[in-house]
């Protein structure tokens, strides 16, 4: 194992734990706005931070870890084997895809082009959120498909149910990420960069 790898592993582990915690904190903050508010969560923010800091590998790993943590701590609801796999390990791993923009984001920040950096960040967050949404959407079809009677518009149910909270989670994550990087980019990127 190379030295940088141990640091990455530990950081990813700690941030996955943070993500799980933020999931609970956001339930506390948003659940009183509307009943399904519990699903809206800023849990993806630490995953995005790892993705922008360590690139795609860090992003995918922290996402996978977050998904697995939800299962082992018992916060996951699994009602179908395929749904369980899609909704937790796969959906959250794909959030880490945002890391493909890590190089571009860091470069633009170094060159002082913050605006471009924020645009790339939002693009990354969109890509991660969208892929996560696709997983939940597919799992919703599997889920409703096996629980709802035949002939029901299962794709529509899944789209409405997953689409609403994922859209809001995306917007929220993007706003918070930009706010965070505009105030504390020195901490959030690797030391060598700043």
């Amino acid at each position: 194992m190379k030295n940088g790898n141990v640091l990455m592993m530990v950081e990813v582990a700690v941030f996955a734990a943070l993500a799980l915690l933020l999931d609970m904190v956001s339930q506390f903050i948003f659940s009183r706005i509307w009943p399904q508010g519990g699903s809206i969560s800023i849990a993806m923010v630490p995953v995005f931070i790892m993705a922008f800091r360590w690139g795609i590998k860090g992003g995918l790993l922290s996402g996978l870890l977050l998904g697995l943590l939800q299962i082992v701590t018992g916060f996951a609801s699994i009602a179908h084997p395929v749904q369980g796999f899609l909704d937790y390990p796969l959906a959250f791993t794909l959030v880490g895809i945002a890391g493909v923009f890590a190089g571009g984001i860091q470069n633009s920040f170094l060159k002082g082009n913050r605006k471009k950096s924020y645009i790339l960040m939002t693009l990354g967050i969109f890509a991660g959120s969208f892929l996560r949404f696709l997983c939940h959407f597919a799992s919703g079809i599997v889920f409703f498909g096996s629980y709802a009677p035949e002939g029901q518009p299962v794709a529509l149910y899944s789209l409405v149910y997953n689409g609403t909270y994922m859209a809001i989670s995306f917007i929220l994550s993007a706003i918070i990420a930009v706010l965070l990087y505009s105030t504390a980019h020195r901490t959030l990127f690797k030391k060598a960069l700043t």
Partner: protein
Amino acid sequence: MMDKMIFGRYVPAESPMHRLDPRAKLLMVFIFVFIIFLANNIATYVVIGAFTLLILNMSKIPAGFLIGGLRPVFYLILFTFFLHLFFTKEGDLLFKWNFIEVYENGLRQGIFISLRFAFLILITSILTLTTTPISITDGLETLFNPLKKWKLPVHELALMMSISLRFIPTLMEETDKIMKAQAARGTEFSTGPIKNRIKAIVPLLIPLFVSSFKRAEELATAMESRGYRGGEGRTKYRLLKWESKDTILLAAIMVLTVLLLLLRS
């Protein structure tokens, strides 16, 4: 707020379910999640219900915790029940009121599907209610060990999971401290317009991230100075021990599978 966030959903107790090997419980749940879809008539549902009740009884978990686990999916269960009740139009007409018609098959399907849902959630909850997250991680690591052949970093993932689990209580305390510190400065986290709530998150997150990076760096340095170099030849502090009762659990789930296959129509 923090006292509601008990770490994981594990309930410490002395029960036969608690004492089973995590690998046995993981395998049982894994098989159960698949075979429950075999149930399709009264006999099969009775058998699988009896199995679920037996497992619940063996776990000695207070009913309150089990019901608490069902709460987040309660509305989904109700929703699927009513979907079947109103939209399955087969069998004899049982009930008619204005445009609402309830047919025999709809009622039966509604009950079956909601039961299947409840049994699944109960059995998967039993795993996390009777096993600590760290033993589940150990169990998963051993079960997935063969995947190392395909270069899957099973050991590294398990180690990272253990680190995460170890840090959750620490970070929780930290979050609580920072939230209180910011609240003392006048930040409102759970009241006020949504815009202010989002803004309030930033001064919570930044100190939290700064201290997390510091903790991670310290841990990485400690690991390196103690010569951590990956999974090869690493010994374990917690050892899993497979006993005859674990084999009995697996035998029971096998018997259940055979029964379901014989009884299903």
